């Protein structure tokens, strides 16, 4: 799939964006699949959310668990470190694609899923073994909780 995107778009930055968008579209559906299978109650704070993603979410859909670390001072940003990333089995990045985030789809998935439970987030790769780093690390940042609003205008 990534190879096809590279052929279609040629520009690595564009492919990164496409992967993120595709991931987002997956994430907004994945959340219902996750909620129906995992027996979790609504998370009361972001720390709990990060734990649930790392331990239950990743386990359910990728078969691996991640560790949560590097919290910032007010607990709105953290890192999810993956020891093993099944998406990149047998993958190597050639010279021409050094700017590519091969697993960018994962960022979109997490962002999409969290948006459906009222959290706006930013998810980026901090470390990527395909690019020469020593681990796979996602940086997860909570931008805001979006409160549930009454959707109808009163004059309708």
């Amino acid at each position, binding site marked *: 799939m990534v190879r096809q995107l590279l052929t279609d778009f040629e520009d690595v930055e564009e492919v990164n964006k496409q992967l993120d968008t595709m991931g987002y579209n997956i994430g*907004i*559906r994945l*959340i*219902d*699949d996750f*909620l*129906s*299978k995992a027996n*979790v*109650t*609504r998370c*009361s*704070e972001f720390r709990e959310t990060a734990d649930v993603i790392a331990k239950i979410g990743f386990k359910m859909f990728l078969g691996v668990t991640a560790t949560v670390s590097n919290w910032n001072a007010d607990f709105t940003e953290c890192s999810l470190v993956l020891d093993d990333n099944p998406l990149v089995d047998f993958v190597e990045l050639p010279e021409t694609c050094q700017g590519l985030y091969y697993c960018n789809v994962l960022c979109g998935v997490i962002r999409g899923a969290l948006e*459906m*439970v*009222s959290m706006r987030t930013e998810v980026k790769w901090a470390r990527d073994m395909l690019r020469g780093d020593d681990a796979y690390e996602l940086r997860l940042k909570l931008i805001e909780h979006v409160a*549930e609003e*009454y*959707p*109808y205008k009163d004059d*309708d």
Partner: protein
Amino acid sequence: MALAMAPRMRCLYIFNRNGMCLHYHVWLRSLMTLSPQQDQKLMFGMLFSLNSFTAKIDPVSSGKENNPPCSFYSFRTNTYKLHFMETASGIKIILLTDPRIGDLREALMHIYSNIYVEYVVKNPLYSPGQPFRCELFNMALDHYVKTLQ
């Protein structure tokens, strides 16, 4: 003498977090006083307020962050019983039934996990946030609901 079992299920609504009615399924409803749009808007609006109301007047919750939020799950009148379930993703499932039926919380969970998620969410032709019409969903729902009568 063959007696046709009167269905105990009256109708079902599925709403998403934006108030969009994704699905309306009816088995037995002889009275409908409003147009479908008004009916759905009223249903959603009422449940939104009711949920907020039940949480606010909860006499036992300490109000601290660690307690799970209070949510109502049914109400009954002399002619029908309304069952409600809301997921963390904002999907609301409402089922109107015969007033004598018992607690259907597990049934609503089953409808969400095994019918909605399986036939709608996982359907590649479905656009999230839009109303859906899916034969497999309808069939699975009818089949499941028969087991509840």
